[in-house]
């Protein structure tokens, strides 16, 4: 485990840069993490991140489908907001664990 500083706040992250404690997260911290991913966060990004955090807090599994049905973005727009590997990038920026698929 290592520590990184985002928006002036020290955050514990794992080897792959995912937060180990999601409670430290703020939108300001997210902006700093997003910069590392090459993304300039907009309100739309933040709305998606909040949705992801709420779903995770309820213990529900994240999927492209559930985000596509969130009413905030559809799956295509989600890809545009977080290009490449959207679920992984969005999870890291949202301060939650890396999405895992069960066997």
């Amino acid at each position: 485990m290592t520590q990184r500083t985002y928006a002036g706040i020290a955050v514990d992250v794992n080897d792959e840069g995912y937060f180990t404690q999601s409670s430290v997260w703020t939108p300001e911290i997210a902006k700093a993490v997003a910069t590392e991913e090459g993304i300039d966060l907009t309100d739309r990004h933040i709305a998606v991140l909040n949705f992801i955090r709420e779903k995770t807090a309820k213990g529900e599994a994240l999927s492209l489908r559930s985000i596509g049905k969130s009413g905030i973005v559809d799956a295509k727009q989600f890809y545009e907001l977080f290009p490449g590997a959207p679920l992984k990038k969005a999870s890291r920026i949202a301060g939650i664990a890396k999405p895992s698929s069960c066997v």
Partner: protein
Amino acid sequence: MKKLVILGAGTGGTLIANKLRKKLPSAQWQITIVDKEPDHVYQPGFLFIPFGIYESRQVVKPRKKFIPAGVQYIESVIEKVNPATNIVELANGTQLTYDYLIVATGVDIAPYETPGLAGAEWHKSIFDFYTLEGATRLQTALSNFKEGNLVISIVELPFKCPVAPLEFAFLADSYLRKKGIREKVNIFYTTPLPGAFTKPKATKILGELLEKKGIQLIPDFNIEEVDNSDKKLVSYDGRTVPFDLLTIIPVNMGAEYIGRSGMGDDMNFVPTNKHTLQSVQWENVFVLGDAANIPTSKAGSVVHFAAEILYENFLYAIEGKPLTASFDGHANCFIVTGIGEGTLIDFNYDVEPLPGSFPLPVIGPMKLLKINRLNYLGKMAFKWAYWNLLIKGRHMPISTKMSMSGKETD
């Protein structure tokens, strides 16, 4: 008289009906089971139909044959459940009331969920092998296939029997080699996962096997649509994969009535306590098999292990006792790696598939994540065990809880 209603008479429903009818006195308990189709199908057999290894008649038997005496069987589509008033509505107009409900309606493919998938090419050059119809039609298409791109694709996770598309790819490689046309065919394997499988050790070994067989893995591929006129897959990030023959695992969803009854998540899976197998929301509802949202494989072996736990907890529940039996997510899946060869994985909620021997250390005779002929025979023997032991609720020679014995850890 108490009433138990079981929804679905597939692997799980049939098995639990057999076990509970033996246990619950007929004078006190009425058991009713509902299914929409007259035939019980052995789904693991669907894998072999496209290659002519099995014929359809080997995987189909009349459902009634497996419903025990003393259980009322109703053939009808389930329309809706009202869990607040304990009523099930059937399409044939019947209303069933229950004291306890066991949901075992599994999952089914939903090709219409993907734009273009259920279009003009469906069952022409695009096939599933998760239905008897799809598998049978694919057999004809494969026997006529001479050259070009054979693409095997997974639309979305989770789907039942997560090793089945890999097995299909391995068998297709063997089959085309036997026909002498392997060099005229490119085999591609697209998946939303970053690798061949979900967990690290199995992913590495199965990924190497794909490579060895010249099957090209296309990871992180999320299908946005199927272009029927150009016969190609299009991903959300704009990549395309052209196909001449496409074998696809469409989105897998729980039964529609689950959604209509407000009992499911966005995939129509029923939120279920992963250890007790009781519904999260309703105390008198239990969920068995693929229909549950529990984080393990949707597989027949899982249904079998889960049924042992559900059986115990059901008996506790009706006596008002705490549900102390706990499911560990145990799964045990043979993986066919070519005609005549196979491997085996054994895992649970907490332990990923590891290499080793099964069920005994060193001796095996089955090998975990290693390839041998015996593993293939094990897979083929599963058909006999399914019809004769598993769904009849008889003892299977394999323990409900996963064991670390024989597994190699580092």
